[in-house]
């Protein structure tokens, strides 16, 4: 399995860079937390890897991995929760690589979908409409879909935001299982406790990379302070990168 190598990457929206000059490697099978103050470019980086945003400069080398083989869980707000669809239909979409646009679902695939739902603690929820689910239950459904995607690389954007503790604990088990199966995991997180206890690698971003390496060496008080100072600095100067200037 190939690694994801970032070469001097700058990307953002509407000509405003949110990530500046990032270089580094996500090793195969590594489990990395991306942390940093609000607006530090964490989600932007994930969108760059999945190909939603094009880099201004630099590039992302997926090492031959097809972009559709990367599983991506965006922040919840992007999904219409009132949509009339059942839990099992949503979860079954995780099998897209097998069924594509047209193929039918065999009994075996339905069984697999059912087992996966059970694995995230939602046995018997198959026929419920998604609008009936609580926040936590819905996130479990999305994790079940990720499980079925069976992807070698998994990107999670604030997967535990506003979740109850029980859900977080269960879903962290799922993430750990992926890690044990040697998948590459990159997760945007806020909670340093979670990062310290579960994620061996950490990337600390504050638009510019502050530190990238083993979690214990990255999450030091000095680094965190530096990240905080940089984020306060942008608040005063609205644009981080004045036109025509190299920064």
């Amino acid at each position, binding site marked *: 399995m190939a690694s994801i190598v970032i070469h001097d990457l700058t990307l953002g929206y509407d000509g405003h860079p949110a990530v500046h000059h990032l270089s580094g490697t996500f090793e195969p099978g590594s489990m990395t937390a991306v942390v940093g103050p609000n607006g530090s470019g964490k989600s932007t980086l994930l969108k760059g890897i999945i190909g939603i945003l094009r880099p201004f400069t630099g590039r992302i080398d997926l090492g031959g991995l097809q972009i559709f083989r990367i599983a991506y869980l*965006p922040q919840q707000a992007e999904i219409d929760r009132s949509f009339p669809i059942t839990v099992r239909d949503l979860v079954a979409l995780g099998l897209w690589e097998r069924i594509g646009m047209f193929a039918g679902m065999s009994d075996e695939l339905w069984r697999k979908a059912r087992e996966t739902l059970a694995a995230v603690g939602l046995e018997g929820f198959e026929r419920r409409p998604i609008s009936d689910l609580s926040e936590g239950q819905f996130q479990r459904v999305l994790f079940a879909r990720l499980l079925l995607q069976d992807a070698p690389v998994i990107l999670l954007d604030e997967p535990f935001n506003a979740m109850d503790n029980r859900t977080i604990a269960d879903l962290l088990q799922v993430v750990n299982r992926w890690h044990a199966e040697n998948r590459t995991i990159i997760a945007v997180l806020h909670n340093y406790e979670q990062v310290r206890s579960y994620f061996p690698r950490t990337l600390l971003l504050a638009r510019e990379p502050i530190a990238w390496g083993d979690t214990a060496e990255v999450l030091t008080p000095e680094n965190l302070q530096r990240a905080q100072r940089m984020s306060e600095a942008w608040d005063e100067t609205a644009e981080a990168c004045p036109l025509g200037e190299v920064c």
Partner: protein
Amino acid sequence: MSYLWAIFLAPFQDFIFMRHALVACLALALGCGPIGVLLVLRRMSLVGDALSHAVLPGVAVGFLVSGLSLYSMTLGGIVAGLIVALLSGAVSRVTLLREDASFAAMYLVSLALGVLLISWRGSSLDLIHVLFGSILAVDDAALVLVASITTATLLILAIIYRPLIVECFDPGYLRSVSGKGAVIHIVFLVLVVLNLVAGFQALGTLMAVGMMMLPAVSARFWARQVWSTALAAVVIAMLSGYAGLVISYHGNLPSGPSIILTAGLGYAFSVVCGAHGSIYSRYRTAQHLTG
């Protein structure tokens, strides 16, 4: 018994134009039901409205070229509808205007242009005919056209059903597993335009969209899955078509507005009494909670 017969069945037994009109309505319902439901689910209700107006200048050009001819007006309508659909999509992608706003701009211009073109050469009766349709003048050729569009719509929907649904509620996911999202979106817009043009023959450009949207929004109160919502919309549209025709026959009223008003009654009934999310069901749940 014979009294009921006289009210509900005799008009269709006695007059071939009523049978034609009924068949056209049933066929329209089959195509417009699912399309309308998908428009509502994609939060594109206004886009349907805008596209129905956008068809008008094309129809008007067809009318200028060869009068009230089925084929030239249909072709003109399809071409104009497609141009506006694609242009609006492009404007919203290139500029900061959102898609609904650019559609609104397009349809106001189209409506004005269409009315102007028809008034230039035609009588006000022609204008009424184009705007509100004359379902009672649906001939064999028009029936074949409506049936063909409905058949094509159902076939294409069956083929693109899965990606279309995913594109509706989680476009980001479709993008992450497949690059076909934009193609699906365009195919869908083409289907919307085709069905509006089919509806325009019978109901007129202003009323056609009613057959699409009113049953669809009503159906949301009766079903909780996409296929069942679409089915409910088809049933509601068929009932509205039939009841509207009966009312227009006995009341000597224009058929298009009668049908759409009947659908409107169905909507009001659904809002109040529907099985899911209606005023009645909310009230019932509230009682459960307090009691």
